[in-house]
Each structure stands twice: as structure tokens, then as C-alpha cells.
């Protein structure tokens, strides 16, 4: 099964994985790539080189990398406002994304979409919470009708569980056994609101109650997540209907570019178990340093190229 995570255009294997590199290295590299891309963006914003807004996925890189690994040509990802990691893990297209956020003609959507509205083969995103879930289900229905065995994946956040259309869609997806995988990234916060102030009852039970099996995991370990994601994608692909992969994780940066009012202590603790730390331990220091370097150099080239674009 060929991964869509390596789209032909504008990728750089220093960012997406060197040929023959062990999977563990590749995963680290990809997460590092996403992390550094986001950090670079935040720096560029501060510099005033970008306009609009951005939502960094720092802390959640493992989800994107783990899930996209199991997707194949023909599969489709629908993502949300916090879509950079998903997009980069899927396509590797740092230049297209950066140019997009810079509002340049070379951007994946020619600067029209911006940070939250990305489109590329097998990938779309929209910054309106909730509505992408039925959109992804519609793609799943198309796949079902076509009988092509393709999977439709949609990423949502914990806060998005506030939107009613999510439940309308779970119901219909379950009734119609659609090949839909909902990946819910519970990063404990929705903008300024902690999950406890937004969500009553039990998160996993909400999906189950609509007849959608849920796989729940609290982890920032890309290996663990990848194993589980593989099983979930496989089950959906096998035609057994929709499933939910519920990942409890954490957003390490602020919501968008604005203030972060969360308890410092809480954030500090999460930095100790963030994906790069957790998985990075598995690499020896030299490999890590080399990969970090390669990513850094490649990203610097991307930034330089993007800056020079008209």
C-alpha cells in the first residue's frame, strides 16, 4: 500500500524520510519537520512576514504522522483549522503550505485559502468547526458507492464535539456503514476553554452511543499511535463501517497567535511527554542531531524559497 504521505510535488526527503531509513527515524523526522515548520511559522508571524492567523499543532505531531502512514492513494483526509501537521504528514509539501500562508501565488490554494483552507490531492480542510465531518462522510459514501475500498479520514478536536452536525453525521455514517474514520484529537482545550467546561458525559461513549466503535488512547507516542491507527484504518477499509480513533493529547502552544491563559504548570508537565521527547528517546543522539540538522537545513531552504516567491 503506497502512502499518500509522499506526494510527488515539492517534497524533500530530508523532511519526509530518506529512502531506506528505518521507520523510527522516519517518524521522528516527520514529527520534527512538523514541529519546526510550526515554530518557524510562529516566528515569521512575529516578524510580520505573514498575515491572518495560524493554529500550530505543536505537541500533537504524533497523531498526524501516525494516521497518515496508513493511508493510501485514493484515501482522503479532511482537516480543520489546525491542519498544518495533517497536511505536511500527508503531502510533505512545506513550500506549498508556507507560500499559501504567506499569501503567495505558489501557495497550494494560491493564497486564497490561507492557513485553514487547504486543498491538495487527497486532502482538504475548512476552518468552520463541525461541518467537515459530514463532508468527509460524503466522501466516504462516494467511496462506498464506487466500491473502491478507499477510506475517508476526518480530524476534529475535542471542542468540535459541541457541534450538532457531528452527531447527525455519526448517526448516518453508522446507519450506512460508511468507510469513515473520525480522528478526534482531544488536546484538553478548545481555544480558552478546558474540556471539562465544554463537554458533559463521556467522550468515548458519545461515539459509541451512535453505533460507532471507538478506540481510545491517551498517548503522544507515535509508535503506539501508529500501531493503533493502522488497525483502525484497516478496520474501516475492510468495510465494517465508521470508527473513531480518540486520542487524548495536548496542545503545547497557544490556540492561535494570541495569549495563552492556561496554567503554566500544566503546560510545563506536558512538555515532558511531548511526541519528540517520547519518541526521540528511541533514537541515539547522533541520529537525532543529524535528522534535526537535515530538517533544519531543508526548512531553511523552504523559507528562503518561499520568501523569494512573488
Amino acid at each position: 500500500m503506497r502512502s499518500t504521505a509522499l506526494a510527488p510535488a515539492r517534497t524533500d526527503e530530508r523532511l519526509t524520510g530518506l529512502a531506506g531509513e528505518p521507520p523510527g527515524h522516519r517518524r521522528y523526522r516527520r514529527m520534527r519537520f512538523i514541529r519546526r515548520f510550526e515554530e518557524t511559522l510562529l516566528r515569521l508571524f512575529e516578524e510580520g512576514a505573514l498575515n491572518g492567523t495560524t493554529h500550530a499543532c505543536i505537541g500533537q505531531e504524533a497523531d498526524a504522522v501516525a494516521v497518515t502512514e496508513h493511508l493510501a492513494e485514493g484515501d482522503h483526509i479532511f482537516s480543520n483549522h489546525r491542519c498544518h501537521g495533517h497536511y505536511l504528514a500527508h503531502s510533505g509539501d512545506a513550500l506549498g503550505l508556507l507560500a499559501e500562508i504567506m499569501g503567495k501565488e505558489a501557495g497550494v490554494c494560491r493564497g486564497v485559502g490561507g492557513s485553514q483552507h487547504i486543498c491538495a490531492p487527497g486532502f482538504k480542510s475548512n476552518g468552520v468547526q463541525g461541518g467537515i465531518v459530514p463532508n468527509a462522510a460524503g466522501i466516504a459514501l462516494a467511496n462506498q458507492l464506487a466500491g473502491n475500498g478507499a477510506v475517508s479520514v476526518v480530524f476534529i478536536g475535542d471542542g468540535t464535539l459541541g457541534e450538532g452536525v457531528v452527531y447527525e453525521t455519526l448517526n448516518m455514517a453508522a446507519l450506512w456503514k460508511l468507510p469513515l474514520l473520525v480522528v478526534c484529537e482531544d488536546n484538553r482545550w478548545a481555544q480558552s476553554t478546558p474540556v471539562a467546561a465544554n463537554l458533559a458525559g463521556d467522550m468515548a461513549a458519545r461515539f459509541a452511543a451512535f453505533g460507532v466503535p471507538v478506540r481510545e488512547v491517551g498517548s503522544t507516542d507515535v509508535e503506539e499511535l501508529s500501531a493503533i491507527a493502522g488497525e483502525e484504518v484497516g478496520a474501516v477499509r475492510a468495510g465494517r463501517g465508521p470508527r473513531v480513533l480518540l486520542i487524548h493529547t495536548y496542545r503545547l502552544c497557544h490556540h492561535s497567535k494570541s495569549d495563552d491563559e492556561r496554567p503554566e504548570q500544566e503546560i510545563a508537565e506536558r512538555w515532558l511527554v511531548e511526541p519528540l521527547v517520547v519518541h526521540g528517546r528511541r533514537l541515539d543522539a547522533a541520529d537525532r542531531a543529524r535528522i534535526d540538522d537535515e530538517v533544519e537545513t531543508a526548512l531553511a531552504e523552504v523559507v528562503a524559497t518561499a520568501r523569494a516567491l512573488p
Partner: protein
Amino acid sequence: MIFAKELGDTLRGALDGDRRVVLLGEDIADPYGGAFKVTRGLSTAFPQRVRTTPISEGAIAGISAGLALAGYRPIAEVMFGDFLTLMFDQVVNHITKYQAMYAGQATCPVIVRAATGGHRGYGPTHSQSLEKHFLGVPHLRVVAASLYHDPRVVFADFLGRDEPVLYVEHKLLYPQHLTLPVHGMVGDLIATSDCSPGMLPTIRLSAVPAAECAVSVLAYGYPALLAAKVVERLAMQEEIFAELVVPAQIAPMDWAPVLSSAAATGSVVTVEEGADGWSWGSEAASVLSRRLFGKLRRPVDVVASAPTVIPSSKTKEAAVLVGGAQIEAAIRRAC
């Protein structure tokens, strides 16, 4: 065949001829075949592609969007046009956005069909013509069923293009027979069909040539039928001549035939069943007043329903909704 059946036939033809066509909607499956029976028989013939849905208008629209993004041709039925409100987010922030916001890399040709309109005593939440709120949504075409337009032609146009469209079907048209122009006539009225490139045809109906008419009446859907009756009667009984102009597509508008009629008559009345104020006719009045500045004998008159809830009581409903009497009065004033 009555219009509901013609439309059902059209949908059957679409399902038959185009494997990308998928019908979604509440209670559209057999044996019920939809609240207004338009889809009767279709789920039996096409069980995979004609799907009755839960009562989830938002998801119906949203799933249709996904189907369309994936290359299918979803046709979503809204049982009562009043519930288009629940699709508003999908229409405005998803369906009509995708193509342009993705710089043309995707298309989202969702067709939404909605049963609209009053005069049946269904009361405040089952009688509205809410399409005016969808006019001017960028990249959305709004098309209205009429007895002068063959739904087969209309749907062939929808399916031949990559754009989303809202198709409003006034309930009172369902039991009526289509009256398509035959040999340039609809009943006793001369019928011409004008059509700018890329637009759906606009039908013009009058007892005498436009140049001899005193007023142009611009109307769509069921009020167009009411207006045709008035136009016909006034011509026969009083030799008051008006030209009725009935577009299929009500937004964006093909102004050319309207301008041509209005330039000939020098006077315009617009008629719609939606509530008065920021309505279809407002844009018509705005555009025509500009494009024909100094050439109209009198201001454009916008006839619309009273801007309030539509009562259930027959007499109260009739007092709120535009009917033949208001149309006649407006035509007389405008002559």
C-alpha cells in the same frame, strides 16, 4: 402529467443516465416516496443511489457536499423549504465556498431541491419562501420551478455544470400540469424564450407583442402562474396588455430579457411570494432603475408578501401572501 410527476420523471432520467447522481432526503424512499411524492418509485429502481435519511438537514447538505467534492452529483431534497435554514451553514460556508477557496482545485456541484411556499394553511414554519435569503450567496445559483420550464432541461443544465444550485419548487405547482410553450404559444399568450449564454431560458408571455404592452411583470414560481392568469384575463377582458417575464434562474439573474421587456414597456412590476424587504424584487428594482435610468415611465414596483409570519388560518394566510388581487392591482397601477 402533473409537475410532481414530470419532476420525478426527470430525476429518474438523471439517475438512469448518470451514475454519479445520488438522491438524499427525508422520507424519500418507497413506498412513501417523499412528502410530495416526487421521488416515488425511485428508491425501488435505484436502491443504492436513492437514500432516505434521518431528520438531519445539516448532515444531508454536508454529506451531499462530500459526495459532490468526490465527483458525484447529489440531489438533496428538503421536505419543506422552511428547513433550508438548517442547511444554511453548509450552503454558505462549505458547498459554495470550496471551488473558489481552493482556487479551482475542487468543485462542489450539490443540487438542493426544496418544497416551498404557502397557500395551504400549513402555518408559520411550513409555508415560507425563504429563497430570498440565499440570493446573492456568492457562487450559488438559485433556480425556481415553473410550469413554463421543462424540468428535464433545467436538470440537464444542473448536471452538465460544476456549480451548486438551489432549486425551489413551490408546493402549489406539484399538482399542476406543465404548460410549456408550443408553437410559440402558452394557451392564448404569445411565448418567447430568451437565453443569454450560459443561462437558463427566460420565458416571456403576452397577448400582444412586447412593444404594445404597457408593463412588464417579472415573476417566478407559483406567483408567475398567478400573474399569467391575471395577464391573460386583463388582456381578454379589458385590453390591458402586460408582458410576463418568467426566469428559471432567479440568481444570478439573466437581466437581458428583463431589460429588453422593460425597455419596451417602460414600466416594471416584480412579483414574489417571499416576504417584502431585501427580496428578489429589491435587486431587480435596483438593477433596472440603474440600467434603465431615465427610460422608465414610473418606478419599479416590488410586490411581495407582508413581512410577518404566515398564518395558518386560511383567511389570515391569504391576507399575508401575495395573491392574484395584489398582482392585478399592481399591473393596473403600472399601466
